[in-house]
């Protein structure tokens, strides 16, 4: 068990904000690339963590022992992405106190990348984003997506090839 998983098992309420801080950026930006929309990625990220919190709340020691946080969070996120969000009207919604409105620190050339990524097949796009934007390993992606490692590797390989060809054609 890694340090964070151990901390979550030990005192969920105390350690959970640390999980949000460490896993949040990868989750948000991965979802942002996959769905292409700030608001939707934000909702999905929040909902993923909320489900994760409820899940972890019911875990016994054995489930914590076998837990691999990143793939598990992505399993939840990808499942949510397939369904519509339902629970938002039951929750309080945060009101930004600062005056700069919705913060959206989007990298400059991301629109061009989103266009290229959207030309890939869904499994290729997912595998490429999880591998190179989020930084998951092949085993973790296989676990999160429920696909064999060989298939994941092939998806990444073909996806990158396709992106490379698109960029060559652009220049």
């Amino acid at each position, binding site marked *: 068990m890694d340090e964070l998983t151990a901390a979550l098992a030990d005192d969920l309420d105390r350690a959970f904000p640390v999980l949000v801080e460490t896993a949040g950026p990868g989750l948000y930006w991965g979802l942002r690339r996959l769905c292409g929309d700030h608001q939707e990625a934000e909702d999905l990220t929040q909902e993923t963590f909320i489900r994760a919190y409820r899940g972890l709340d019911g875990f016994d020691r054995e489930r914590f022992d076998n837990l691999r946080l990143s793939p598990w969070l992505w399993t939840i996120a990808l499942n949510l992405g397939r369904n519509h969000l339902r629970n938002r009207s039951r929750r*309080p919604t*945060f009101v930004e106190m600062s005056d700069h409105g919705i*913060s959206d620190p989007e*990298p400059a050339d991301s629109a061009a*990348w989103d266009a290229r990524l959207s030309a890939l097949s869904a499994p290729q796009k997912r595998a490429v984003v999880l591998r190179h934007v989020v930084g998951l390993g092949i085993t973790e992606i296989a676990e999160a997506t429920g696909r064999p490692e060989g298939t994941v590797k092939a998806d990444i390989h073909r996806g990158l090839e396709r992106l490379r060809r698109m960029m060559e054609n652009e220049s």
Partner: protein
Amino acid sequence: MSIERDLTQLAGELPDGISEGVALGTGLADGFDLYPSPVGEVVVTFNVEGVSSLDLATDGYLERFAERHGRNLLRAEPPAQWGKHITEAMEAGSPGKLPVDLRSKTPFQARVLRIAASIPRGEVRPYGWLAREAERPGAARAVGSTMARNPIPLIIPCHRVVRSDGHLGEYSLGGPHNKWELLTHEGVEPARLVELADHHVRVQADPSTGVYCLPTCHVIRGSGEWNVADFTSTAAARSAGFRPCEVCRPG
């Protein structure tokens, strides 16, 4: 430039507001918003379970909440599903459709608070009445301290709970003058209650119906002030041949 490195740069920091949204959605923090009320601006806090507290919006309420509940507060809009009922509930002095979060209370305290929430607008009940309704007739003191620590005054109308001798007693939301103010606001004449208490009047009876009531019960209030007989105890009313009102259940 490799494609892999370009892709890495498509991620960044977590945008503002997401971790706060998670804290609110998991219940690790409560949301709060400010509302006007007859006793001045109040801060109402809420979470997925319902409204969790109400306090005067004076300095330090954020700290007071964190100390009492062990959770932080974040500025938020209440859940869309029931947020609109907050203003209604404050105006009515009753939760109505508004869910309330009483998880921090013992089952007895929560039961007493829910019974207090059922006291009609414009009427008051003594601590002993609440204890009896909660099936712990000897627990008037525990009822008193439960009212003193009512987390959601105004909405759970502890201002309608008075001392067993009929005097208004203390009030947690800013002091007894606010209790007077709120009761006046809903049509109770506090001065009349004090006068009855000074004369040790506990119940009033209507000879035309044979029923005795607590003095603010709408049943006896409908009888007209000149037609009622005052009694200093329920026993005295009963021995004069009166029976207890089924609406206010004076005991």
